[in-house]
């Protein structure tokens, strides 16, 4: 099983860098983006297995970024982060093809579990293509 490539997208830089480091410590290849544009460019440059995408960001909205990622790279799995604790954004995101959604602050175990599930799905899909 190859190294899991993860793209973390959040405008909170402190949050995203720290989380990236923690995931790297756990053997994942992590990159970060702090807004929608950056995220899209990063996906274009090298499609990751999983994108962890914050829904509340300035510039391109999370749902919009999700739509574009799924349009260009259907095999890339997206886990949504919501600060609202609201199921609505999550359900809406799921309808747009997101893998799952999580609420901030994260429990790292929950995230790791979801990342591995999504990663397996993505590697399977990308391996097939």
């Amino acid at each position: 099983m190859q190294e899991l490539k993860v793209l973390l997208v959040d405008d909170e830089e402190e949050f995203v860098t720290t989380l990236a480091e923690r995931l790297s410590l756990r053997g994942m290849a992590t990159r970060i983006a702090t807004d929608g544009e950056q995220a899209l460019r990063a996906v274009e440059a090298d499609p990751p297995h999983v994108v962890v995408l914050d829904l509340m960001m300035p510039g391109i909205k999370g749902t919009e970024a999700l739509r574009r990622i799924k349009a260009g790279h259907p095999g890339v799995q997206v886990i949504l982060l919501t600060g609202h604790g609201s199921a609505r954004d999550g359900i809406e995101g799921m309808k747009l093809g997101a893998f799952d959604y999580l609420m901030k602050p994260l429990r790292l175990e929950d995230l790791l579990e979801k990342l591995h599930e999504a990663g397996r799905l993505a590697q399977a899909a990308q391996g097939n293509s």
Partner: protein
Amino acid sequence: MSRLERFRSLFRTALDVPEEIAPERYQALRRKITLLLTTAAVVPLLILSVINYHQYRATLTREIVTPVRGLVNKTRHSFELFLAERASTVSLISQVYTPAELADERNLNRIFRAVKGEFPGFIDLGLINENGVHASYVGPYNLKGKDYSSADWYQQTRVKGVYVSDVFMGFRRFPHIVIAVQRMTDDGHSWVLRATIDTGQFDRLIASMGLEPESDAFLVNTAGVLQTASRFYGAVLDQLPLPMPPMTYETATLETTDPAGRDVFITYTYFQHADFVLMAVKPRADIFKPWTTLRSDLILLFVTSVALILSVAFGLTDLLVRRMRASDERRIAAFVQMEHTQKLSSIGRLAAGVAHEINNPLAIINEKAGLASDLMELAKDFPERDRFRALVDAILRSVERCRSITHRLLGFSRRMDVNIEQLDVNDVLKETMSFLEQEALHRSITTSVSLDPAMPRIASDRGQLQQVFLNILNNAFAAVPDGGSVTLATWLRDPDTVGVSIKDNGKGMSDEVLRHIFEPFFTTKKTSGTGLGMFITYGIIRRLGGDIAVQSKEGAGTTVTVFLPVKAAPTATLGS
């Protein structure tokens, strides 16, 4: 400003009272309305009564005085007829017989007896020659040869031809009048035929008027000398103590006061051909007896009406003002309720906003602490590793606590996935109750239920209702001591609303606590509660279109009543 405009504004300002609910406000209003109502009713009544009073009085006076006037008029005619008859008789005798025939006393006596037989009242008859000396006389007195040449009546007869005297006593000390007629012989000698008439006839005429004992009638001459005896004002030839009324040819009435101090009506008439005035005097009290009765009736009616108006005005105003006050109070209560709802919804929004904003820094803290922990675990040699691990774990536990709070707050205020179905409130309640059966058993808490079996099914969210009932039941259980009791009841309040009440006999709440019970983070369970239970409960019930009321008394327990709509509220699916 037009007159109408001014009147209107006067009315408006008259009933203008300050807005706030103060007892003085309603007193002022009551005073003003009562005054206005009373004035509007009493003033016209008063005017009407005064007009009636005067009208009735005038009419009655006319009604009473008119017959008296008629009587006086008739009696005057009788008098005039009496005098005219006597005068004609004397005149006729003087024309039919020559002076020579009348000078013969036998002839004169025969004529006198015939006349006396036909016309009562004649006392004597005599012929006076041109020297003014009684030439012949028949009658009860010895007057033959008496010289009248200087007597007033003789002089007047010589001038006027016919003379009717006032009443006088003359030589005989007995009231009588004289009728004298002058004649001229063909050879130019003048002579006078004179008769005296007994005024007893006058008294009979007066008596025939049939007056009441308090009334009086008499004849006076224009000089005010009584010609007949009066009941109250003197004997014949006395001076009448009343002033003479002004001369008029009509029968007239005037009001005056007599010397005895009685208020009297005098009805009088002047004679056309003689120097007499006939007067009838009636005391005013007599005339006004029917009037006085009527007047007391009128006054009684007026007083009764005013009393009635006053009582109606007071009663009506009282009712009106009390209604007004009640409705004002209801309105203010509704405002307070609205304000409360508004406040809670603002607090809810604020709490959700704060929770959302806190989540990001919380996530950072979480990750930083997590990374710190990761790095520590990876380091081979880390001094004070155990202490450090304890510190980081404490941070992470606190973050976890915050997380659960913010998630509950957000979940409350942004929860959208309401799942409306037709459900039986009794079922939901029983189901929820079953969660607590173990605790009830354990703490020997008595639970009694009185559920209305005829409850309609309502459109609502089962899960959220369970959360609501569980929350309230938890509070009830927390409030009662071991062995306490919790009572559940459901009923149909109206066709559109069902009621659910949960009552405990626990420690109850103070008013101060009751005021804050729906606010977030307000808790009396210092150690175990988050203070979100009732806040979330309130939010759910409002979203389901229902209402919640809490009644509590310290030491006497608490009753929480939830009202739910039978039909789903539109807000249940739209959210905030």
